């Protein structure tokens, strides 16, 4: 009974001699492709998520531009138009906006909470590679005439399998991120003290975890129905049963991390503590609750637009954003803002987000009939107003993510992004998002205003142009990062850092931190500055 009866006596000594082996900390810097494939290092994984989501983002914006350009001047084959529209929509959300923030969070959140690594490093790696595999399969499936409503049965099946891979992987990544923030915080860093970006990741990842599995259930049933059944099990078209996840209110789950990123950027670059911190955390949580939309699928409620809960949640979503705007304004007023590029990105994102939630509140007013406009007869694509609204929400998220990349560039890339170019990118991205989204929302009023019915081609042309402008903004950010200066910036690269990611080297060494003292407030670095000033 030796090994099964008592705990091996020498294990305690073994743990003491080599504790890292028992806590999964063998995160040596990866070298080359082999290193990347085998790594569980949150920094390498974070960079990989960021790089691939930006690449997919460029492809997604090309698809969005193609679709609207086609509505404007019909050049795509008829059976291809819906595929371009649906892939563009899926790619914007599941291949671009959410994974981009997953990447930033995988890199930054462990640093913000003073952790040495991400929770479940192997699962985090599996999430990234699963997502990559699923994304590749999805693109391949569409390329061979798949996707919802596609012409080749096996390719359609493949696209559902790919979606299942993507959703499962994103759920896995969400579990890793939430667990990191919940369980790996350094001493004294209570949940009420964590930086708002990490808090927004907790809220966002929870919402992803409550929403994506429901979409996965739909994908599973749609796949089985398409493969084995008659295609009628869900009582609607394949895309019709999945589209709820890319519309109001669920689309807001994409934007939750943007709220945290904006808060951190504004507080740091204002050189002051975040105003109304508790209220801001509550507002982010409330926005998350109001973004839950798994109930709003056609099989549960074909007339969802008439239901009070849908209308109420659409209108109430304005409130947390207004509260956050108040908090951000108070922070800016209380500090001395430095007009660096991340600040411009943050402000641009806030403006677009306000427009988006205001547009969302209009969308739920049934009398405006914004649900009813169609692109063309039998079109699968989401109606114009909803598409414009989704573009604004995703656009606000992308602007905030680009700002976050520039803000944390000393930590992530070991150098500052070129500030002038990044400022230009911030303005270009703002213009791009507004041009991409607003014309479609205006076109959504076509049923109410006859004069707009003939302007569809022009408005769609403008929207296509806006998508291209946003794409240019992404390229500008990439160039700004490549042209960055200041090799090996200081630990506190901005000189006014507040949270723990600014207390380690740029970029952080393996293990991230040395010995961290107990944290006594949400802004431990400001505490040090204040105490030094007092002395």
């Amino acid at each position, binding site marked *: 009974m030796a090994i099964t009866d008592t705990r091996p006596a020498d*294990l305690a000594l073994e743990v003491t001699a080599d504790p890292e082996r028992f806590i999964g900390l063998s995160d040596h810097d990866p070298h080359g492709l082999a290193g990347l494939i085998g790594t569980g290092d949150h920094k390498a994984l974070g960079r990989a998520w960021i790089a691939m989501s930006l690449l997919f983002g460029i492809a997604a914006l090309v698809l969005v531009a193609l679709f609207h350009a086609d509505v404007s001047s019909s050049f795509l084959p008829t059976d291809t138009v819906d595929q371009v529209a649906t892939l563009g929509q899926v790619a914007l959300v599941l291949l671009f906006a959410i994974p981009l923030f997953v990447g930033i969070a995988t890199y930054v959140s462990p640093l913000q909470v003073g952790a040495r690594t991400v*929770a479940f490093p192997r699962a985090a790696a599996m999430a990234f590679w699963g997502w990559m595999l699923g994304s590749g399969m999805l693109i391949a499936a569409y390329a061979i005439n798949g996707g919802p409503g596609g012409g080749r049965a096996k390719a359609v099946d493949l696209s559902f399998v790919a979606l299942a891979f993507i959703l499962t992987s994103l759920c896995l990544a969400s579990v890793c991120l939430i667990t990191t923030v*919940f369980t790996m915080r350094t001493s004294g860093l209570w949940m009420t003290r964590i930086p708002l970006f990490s808090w927004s990741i907790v809220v966002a990842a929870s919402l992803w975890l409550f929403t994506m599995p429901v979409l996965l259930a739909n994908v599973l049933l749609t796949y089985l*129905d398409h493969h084995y*059944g008659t295609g009628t099990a869900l009582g609607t078209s394949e895309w019709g049963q999945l589209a709820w996840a890319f519309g109001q209110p669920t689309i807001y789950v994409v934007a939750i991390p943007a709220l945290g990123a904006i808060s951190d950027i504004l507080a740091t670059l204002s050189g002051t503590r975040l105003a109304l911190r508790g209220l801001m955390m509550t507002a982010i949580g409330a926005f998350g609750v109001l973004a839950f939309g798994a109930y709003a699928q056609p099989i549960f409620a074909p007339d969802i637009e008439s239901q009070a809960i849908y209308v109420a949640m659409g209108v109430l979503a304005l409130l947390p954003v207004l509260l956050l705007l108040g908090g951000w304004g108070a922070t800016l007023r209380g500090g001395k803002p430095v007009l660096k590029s991340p600040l411009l990105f943050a402000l641009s994102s806030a403006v677009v987000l306000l427009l988006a939630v205001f547009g969302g509140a209009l969308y739920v007013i049934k009398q405006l009939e914004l649900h009813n406009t169609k692109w063309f007869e039998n079109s699968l694509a989401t109606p114009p107003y909803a598409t414009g609204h989704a573009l604004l929400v995703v656009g606000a998220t992308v602007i905030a993510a680009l700002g976050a990349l520039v803000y944390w560039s000393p930590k992530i890339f070991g150098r500052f992004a070129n500030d002038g170019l990044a400022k230009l990118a911030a303005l270009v991205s703002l213009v791009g998002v507004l041009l991409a989204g607003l014309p479609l929302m205006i076109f959504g009023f076509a049923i109410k205003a006859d004069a707009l019915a003939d302007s569809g081609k022009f408005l769609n042309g403008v929207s296509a142009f806006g998508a291209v402008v946003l794409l240019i903004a992404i390229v500008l950010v990439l160039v700004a990062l490549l042209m960055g200066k200041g090799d090996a910036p200081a*630990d506190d690269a901005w000189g006014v850092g507040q949270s723990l990611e600014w207390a380690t080297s740029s970029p952080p060494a393996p293990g991230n*931190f040395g010995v961290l003292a107990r944290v*006594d407030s949400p802004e431990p670095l400001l*505490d040090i500055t204040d105490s030094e000033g007092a002395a």
Partner: protein
Amino acid sequence: MAATVTTEPSATAPAPHTGSAGALTPPPVERPRVLLVGTAFAVAGIAMMFAGLIGIYLARRATNLITVGSWLPTDLIIPLSQPNMGLATLVISVVTMQWAVVSIKNDDRTNTYLALGTTLLLAFAFLVEMGYLYALMKADVTTIPGLLIYAISGAHFAMVISAMVFVILMGFRALAGEFTSRQHDGIAAAAIYWHSMVAIYALIWISIFVTK
């Protein structure tokens, strides 16, 4: 209140801990409850997936009852004995799983292995019962009820297998001596997953096999 933050890169390895008597003791658990919390969130996600599946089943059933007046095709008979036995088997496995948790909390390793083994045996029995049920009911997957029943019960079948794999892995870690009365999160996490799997089956049992 000032906080001091030191970040010497080489200091990633904590210093060995010395007990009050000066003897070497194991270091404190560096990642308390990581597996437990991670499992709880993973379970929440899985529960949402089943909520979506069962919700669609019930919504489709309600629509059919209103529009057609019936739900299951006349040639689709779902016997109750096997689902009932399945539920009974899983309820007993909840007890044996909890037996494993209590045993490891008391450093009773023999009973831990016995409990984990019994739990696995019961899960295997459940899978056999479900296989037998499938053979008996012969639902047509091309019909809407058949497709939904296979999708939901099949997803649960997969969850049972994943729960078994979880228990086996934690069993091996227990054999390697990783769990004690001080640190038994692995077994507790497997128990959370297991109990959730049983709770989800109870939902399936009432909403599909009993209600039909």
